[in-house]
C-alpha cells in the first residue's frame, strides 16, 4: 500500500469513527428529556394553558413524533451539512457560535501547541543530556512546577502581578484587537505561558526518559567518534527516535488539556473561546450548542488521531504502510 492509499484508508476510518460517535450522541439525545419540551410545558402552565397539550404541540413542531429512523436520518444530514441549529443561549446559529469560539481559541491554542511540542522534547532531551546535573534539576523543577500548579490559580496570580501591579498586560481580553498585532500578543502572552507551563511537564518527562536510552547507545558513540557535532548528534540521533514514542502520547495529552485547561484559562482571561462556550452551553442546557461542541471535539479528536498516525509513519522509517 502506498502512502496515498494509506492516508485514504485512515481518512475513511476517521469518517466511520465520527459516524459512530455521532450515532451514539443521537441515541443519547433521543433518550434524554428535551429541555425545550419542558420549557413549553412551563410556559403553558404559566399562561393558564394545558401543559400536556403544549408538550404534544412542541413534540410535533420539533419533529419528535416522527419514527426514530427518520429523526436519525435528519440528524445525520444536519450534522454533515453543518446545519447545527440555533443556539438559544446565545441567539445565533450554532455553527456561527462554534466558528467564533474557535477563532479565539485558535489564537492561543496554536502557539500553545507549537510551543509545547517544540519545547517539551527539547527540554526533555536537554535534561537527559545533563542528567542529574543542576541543569537537569532546574529543567525538571520548572516542568513539574508548571504541571503541578493549577492553571486557574496560576493565571490569576500572573494577572495580578503583571496586569494589576506592573500593568504590563491588559486585564480584560479585547476581542477587537487584530490577530497579528502587538496588542493581541500582549493579551495572549499570559494565557499561552500558563498553558505551556501546564502541558510541558508530561512531554518533557517522557522525552527525558525516552531519550536517556539513546544518549549512550552505540550509534551515538559512533557519531561522536566520527566527530559529529553535539547539536547534530542530538538532533538526528536522539531527538528523532525519541519523538516516536513521544508523539503517541502527545495528541491525547493535548486533547485532554485542550478541553480542560482551556476552559479555566478562558474564564480567567476572559477569552470567548471554545472552552467557555461549551461550559456555558452545559450550564444553560442549550442542547444544540452542547451537541455542536461535542461534534467539534469529536472532529478534533478524530483528526488528531489521524495526524498522529501519519506523523508516526513519517518519523519512524521502520514502519511501512503495508503493515497497517
Amino acid at each position, binding site marked *: 500500500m502506498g502512502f496515498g492509499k494509506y492516508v485514504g484508508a485512515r481518512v475513511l476510518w476517521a469518517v466511520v469513527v465520527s459516524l459512530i460517535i455521532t450515532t451514539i450522541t443521537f441515541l443519547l439525545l433521543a433518550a434524554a428529556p428535551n429541555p425545550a419540551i419542558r420549557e413549553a410545558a412551563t410556559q403553558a402552565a*404559566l399562561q393558564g394553558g394545558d401543559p400536556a397539550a403544549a408538550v404534544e404541540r412542541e413534540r410535533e413542531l420539533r419533529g419528535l413524533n416522527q419514527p426514530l429512523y427518520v429523526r436519525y436520518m435528519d440528524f445525520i444530514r444536519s450534522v454533515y451539512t453543518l446545519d447545527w441549529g440555533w443556539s438559544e443561549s446565545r*441567539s445565533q446559529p450554532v455553527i456561527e457560535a462554534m466558528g467564533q469560539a474557535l477563532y479565539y481559541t485558535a489564537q492561543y491554542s496554536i502557539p500553545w501547541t507549537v510551543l509545547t511540542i517544540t519545547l517539551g522534547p527539547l527540554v526533555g532531551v536537554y535534561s537527559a543530556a545533563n542528567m542529574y546535573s543542576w541543569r537537569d534539576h532546574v529543567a525538571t523543577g520548572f516542568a513539574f512546577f508548571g504541571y503541578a500548579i493549577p492553571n486557574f490559580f496560576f493565571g490569576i496570580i500572573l494577572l495580578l502581578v503583571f496586569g*494589576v501591579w506592573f500593568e504590563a498586560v491588559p486585564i480584560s481580553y479585547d476581542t477587537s484587537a487584530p490577530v497579528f498585532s502587538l496588542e493581541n500578543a500582549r493579551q495572549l502572552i499570559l494565557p499561552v505561558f500558563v498553558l505551556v507551563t501546564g502541558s510541558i511537564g508530561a512531554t518533557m518527562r517522557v522525552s527525558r526518559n525516552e531519550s536517556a536510552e539513546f544518549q549512550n547507545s552505540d550509534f551515538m558513540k559512533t557519531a561522536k567518534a566520527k566527530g559529529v557535532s553535539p547539536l547534530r548528534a542530538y538532533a538526528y540521533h536522539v531527538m528523532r527516535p525519541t519523538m516516536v514514542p513521544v508523539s503517541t502520547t502527545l495528541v491525547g495529552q493535548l486533547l485532554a488539556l485542550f478541553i480542560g485547561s482551556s476552559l479555566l484559562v478562558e474564564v480567567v482571561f476572559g477569552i470567548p473561546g471554545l472552552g467557555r462556550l461549551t461550559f*456555558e452551553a452545559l450550564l444553560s442546557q442549550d442542547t444544540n450548542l452542547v451537541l455542536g461542541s461535542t461534534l467539534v471535539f469529536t472532529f478534533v479528536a478524530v483528526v488528531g488521531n489521524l495526524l498522529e498516525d501519519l506523523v508516526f509513519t513519517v518519523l519512524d522509517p521502520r514502519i511501512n504502510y503495508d503493515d497497517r
Partner: protein
Amino acid sequence: MSRRHTDGNNDGRRLGRRQWLSMLGIGGATALAGCSGNGGDGGDGGDGGTGNGTDGGDGTDGDDGGTDTSTYATAAAASFTTLNPIYNTENGAGNAIARALDQGYTFDAENEYVPLLYDMSTEDGEVWTFEVREGLRFSDPYGEVTASDFVYLIQEIHQGGWASSAATTSWRGVTVEETGEYEFQATLESPSLLWPESYDPLLYPIPQALLEPYVAEEDTEGLRQDEELLELQFSGNLGPYVLDEWQRDGGTQYSRNDDYYLRDADDLPDVFNEAPYFDSAEIRVLGEQASRLGALETGEVDQAAIPPERVQEYRNNDEIYVNQIPQPYNEKISVNMRDNGWTTGPGNMFRHTAFRQAMAAAIDKQSLIDGVFRGFAETHFTWQPRFSEFYPPEEEIPQFGVGDRYGSEFARGLAEDAFEQSEYDYGFDGETMVDPDGNQVQLSIYHSAGQETEQLMGEFIAQELGNNLGIDVSVEAIDGTRFNNEYWTTTEFPTPERNEEGEVTEVPDELVDTVNGEEVEWTSPSATNPGPRNVTANEEWDMEIVFGLNTYPRNPITNNAFFDGATAFYNPVGYYPGFDAQELFDNAQQATSEEELADALVELFANLAEEQPYIMLAFPDSTVGYREGLEGPIENFSNGWNLPAWRYDQ
C-alpha cells in the same frame, strides 16, 4: 392626573407581575452567573430607560490614572442570552440594550416619573393616555416613530397570542387604541394608580414594518432570531449609542450616537444637552471576579461590582470610589410548607406562624449583616425595604431577630406556642428540639453551589438555629438551575377543565383544599404554585436561600403575585395567609387616593411582618466601584436613570 412610571435602571429585571423568571431575583441570577451575591455588572441602575441628552461633547480624552475617558466601559459577569428587546428578560442584557435603545420612561433620583419616549397621564387610573415624543426616528428605512408603532407592537405581538413576548402578561386585559399620530390610549380592566410603577406599560420602540412579516406568518422563531432585532439595527436616534458589535461571550461595543433625541429635549436637565459624553461604550464580559476587579483597578473599565469583603480596600484606593446602593432584592429563608417539606418527622411545623416567628427570632439579623455582608445590608422585617414610601411605621411591625425579640429564650417561647398548636408531640429536651419519638429535629438548608456569601449565610443560619432552637441543620450546596427545576417548581400538576371560551368548568379534587375553614379551588395552577400543599415538586426539601426575591418597592401591589392568598401565582412554599390578603390587595388596587393606597399597603406589610411567610433576614446593598472622577452615579435605587449624562469631571 399624575404620571408615574418605572424605573430606569438599576435593576433592569423585567418587573411584570406574573413573570416568574423575574421573580427569581438576584439570587437565582447570580447563581447562574457564577458570581457572588453582589451582582454581575454592578448594575447601571435602571433597566432599559436611561435619560439623557444632547449633543455635543465628544467624549473627553482626559487621563486619570490610566482611565480612557473617551470610552465608557463596564464589566459584566455573564454574557447575554439575547439582545432582542421583545424577548429579553435578563438584567444584564437590559443594560446592554439600554446603551442603544431607550424605553418609554424612567424614574429619577426623587422617584419622579421622567418621560423618555412617551409621557403618560390619567384622570382616574383606568384610562391612560400615552403621548409619544416627536422627533423620534428609527434607522432607515423605517422612518419616524409614531403611536401606531407602539399600538401595533402591543396588539399584534404582546396581545397577539402567538409570539410569547416577554411583555405578554403585562398587556393582558388592556384595551389599546390609537387616538392620534403621536397619541394612544390604554384602558385597564380596573383602575391602577401605580400602573407605571408596575413596569407593565414600559415599551421598547419597534418598527411596525419590521414586525409585519412575522405577524402575517405568526412566525415566533423568525421573530426571535431576526438579526435586525438581535443587533438593534433599527435604533436610529433612539439611544445614546449605536451598537457596533455584539460579541457573544465577549460583550458589546458601541459608538456615540450624535443624533440622540434627548439632546433636543427641553423637559430634562441641561446636562442632557450634550449627552452622551463618551465617544464609545463597551460592556466587557469578564466571568472571573478577580479579572473584573483587576480591570477596574487598571482603568480598563469604569465600573464593576465590588464584593462586600473588598469594599474597604477599594475605599482606600484613591483612583476608585465605591457607592453603596440600596436595592429591593432580599435575603430570606424559604421554608417549605408543602407536603414534601419538614422532612424530619410527622406534621410540618413551618405551617405554624408562631414557629416561623421563632425561627426569625432565633437568627441575629445584625450579626448576619455585620459578619456576612460586612455591614452593607439593612435589616429586613417586612416585605419592603426602608426606602419604600409604603414602608409601615416601625411601631406597627414586630422586629424579630433584633433586641428583645432575638435570643434563645424568646425564640423557644414562640416555638412552644407552635408546639401547642400542632397535633404532634414536638418539644424540647434540654437545649434540643425533639420530634415525637424523642429524636433531635434535623433539617437541611440549600444554598447555591459556588456562592461564598450564600454558603456563609447558610452556615450562620444553621448555627443560630442550632444554638437558639436546638435544631440540627445541615447546609447543602446545589446548582441553582437544578434546584429550580427539581425542588422549586413543577410542571406536572392537575389542571382544571375549561370550555372553548377558556372558562373553568370543572376543578379536579386534587386542586381543592380547605384553607382557614373555607374551601379554596386552584383554578389557575402554575409551575410556581401547582396547587394545594399536597401538590409538590419532584424532590423534598426543608429550607432554601438559593433565591432572593424582588419586593417591588415602587409598586408594592405587584407583590400580590406572592401573597394574595393560597392560590397566589408564585407560591412554591405553600404559604396560606392567616389574614385576608386578597382584600387588602383589592383595596390597594382600587384606591382612588394616595392615602387609601398607603393605608391598605401599610396594613398588608404589618401583617406580613407578623406572619413571616418567608423568614426575612436582610436587604443587601449593591456595592459598585467607579473610577474616580466619574460624575453621575447616585447612592439611590434609581442609580443609572441618567446614564447617558454620566461623564468625567474635566
